[in-house]
């Protein structure tokens, strides 16, 4: 037996459990429950009952991306700095949550922000009075940032770490002040990392599932929750078709951004996982 045949179980398994299921999504997205071709499933998301969720997902994902960039860039910059003894262990500490169960992290956040939770207990103890956070878009945004921040830090850190320090020294020797070194040298050179980070935060944030439901007591759904709702709870006879068309749209959105990423950063300098 030729050695290349050993890959057969792999090829079959991936075909059956990774490729074929996506073909099912495509099939359902373009058909009616009776099996006739249609494009009408895609119009559903523009209808009033869903468009609000779609717009909210885009808005919150955008805010989340901006916040992650504002917090993540300085973090990566500090971590990549010279002579920072604790950098290596801090990198691990910042990246660890990335691999941890999203549900558990969100559940922890919920405990903190709840009306009768730890945050309010602390505020009351300080005599500051309660705040109502859970159920608001602010809470959802906080949950999103909490979950996706490491995905912003990692690619920017990777790029900054690889950066040639002598370029910065050259800029300084030529009379650049620190602000100009930052705006004219460091930031332009870290663009691939920024693009990777933005994509790696924005995409999962748009498609996020459960985070928003948990932090808003089920009041605010995002696109991922909407897909769950359509498949598992709605009573529409063509729920599989509508749900599939939404899933397909998300997949296409992701593929477009990966394509974009490859174009901006062809050598994968940003170290994105895609």
């Amino acid at each position, binding site marked *: 037996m030729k050695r290349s045949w050993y890959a057969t179980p792999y090829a079959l*398994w991936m075909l059956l459990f990774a490729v074929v299921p*996506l073909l099912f999504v495509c099939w359902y997205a373009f058909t009616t429950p009776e099996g006739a071709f249609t494009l009408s499933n895609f119009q559903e998301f523009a209808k009033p009952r869903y468009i609000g969720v779609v717009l909210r997902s885009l808005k919150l994902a955008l805010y989340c991306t901006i916040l992650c960039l504002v917090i993540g860039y300085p973090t990566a910059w500090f971590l990549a*700095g010279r002579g920072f003894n604790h950098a290596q262990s801090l990198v691990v*500490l910042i990246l660890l949550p990335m691999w941890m169960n999203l549900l558990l992290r969100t559940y922890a956040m919920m*405990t903190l922000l709840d009306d009768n939770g730890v945050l309010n207990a602390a505020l009351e103890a300080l005599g500051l009075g309660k705040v109502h956070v859970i159920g608001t878009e602010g809470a959802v945004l906080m949950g999103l940032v909490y979950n996706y921040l490491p995905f912003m830090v990692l690619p920017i850190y990777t790029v900054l770490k690889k950066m040639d320090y002598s370029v910065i020294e050259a800029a300084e020797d030529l009379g650049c002040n620190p602000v100009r070194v930052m705006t004219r040298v460091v930031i332009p050179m870290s663009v691939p990392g920024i693009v990777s980070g933005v994509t790696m935060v924005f995409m999962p944030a748009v498609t996020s599932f459960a985070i928003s439901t948990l932090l808003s007591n089920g009041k605010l759904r995002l696109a991922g929750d909407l897909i769950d709702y359509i498949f598992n709870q709605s009573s529409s006879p063509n729920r599989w078709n509508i749900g599939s068309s939404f*899933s397909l749209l*998300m997949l296409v959105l992701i593929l477009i951004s990966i394509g974009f990423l490859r174009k901006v950063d062809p050598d994968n300098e940003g170290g994105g996982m*895609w």
Partner: protein
Amino acid sequence: MVRNTKSVKIVRALWMTLLMVFLYAPILIMIALSFNASVSRSQWTGFTLDWYVKLFNDPAILGALKTTIEVAVIATIISTVIGTLGAIGMHAMNTGMANVLVNVSYLPMTTPDIVTGVSLMLMYLFCHVPLGKWTMIMAHIAFDIPYVLFSVMPKLRQMNPNLYEAALDLGCKPLKALVKVIVPEITPGIFTGALLAFTMSLDDFVISYFTSSDMYPNLSRIVYSSTKLGVKPTMYALSTLMFATILILLILVNRRTKLENL
């Protein structure tokens, strides 16, 4: 990049402290609450292990624990075998064909979890396969295989290709050469892959949610359902144990291969 002036050091220390508080305070608070005697989250009335005792006396949670471990173990074993054989097979192929096959592995890694979950659910429902433990295992194997593949392939590339040929020239049968020559060389990669697969399997919530049912819930599903019924300290205990387990596994993985390079 950053000059180590005193002010930079202070700003940096402050920034990192705040960031660590943001990242870890919610988790640490939850862990603390799992030892709190009071059900209330706003007051500490003493240390207790009651919630952990309750946890291990709850048949539903014990059942879910059994399901979670069973799924993770079976998925790890099968995905390790398939992934390792796949890597060996692809290593022996011409690059064009191998590239196509490797790219298939990027599919589950790039597809959002929710789409992966929904797509598998659609396929199962279409084929009238009732959702349960085995549908979840099949799904886990599919998302575990790429981790094994990407852990084993670099080890194969590092290997001296002449070793296998030499074994064949000296009269070894191909299968024996595989077991005696190739496998020992790539064992560290196989082990890392298996460890990663096991971690990912324990850690997964979204894909399991769509490919299983309430009849055979795993632990994540139990936590998720419980959130709708208000907060229970036993869930804090459960989450604490899950966090601790995953943390230990991740630290083990990180010692074998840098997490940031995955």
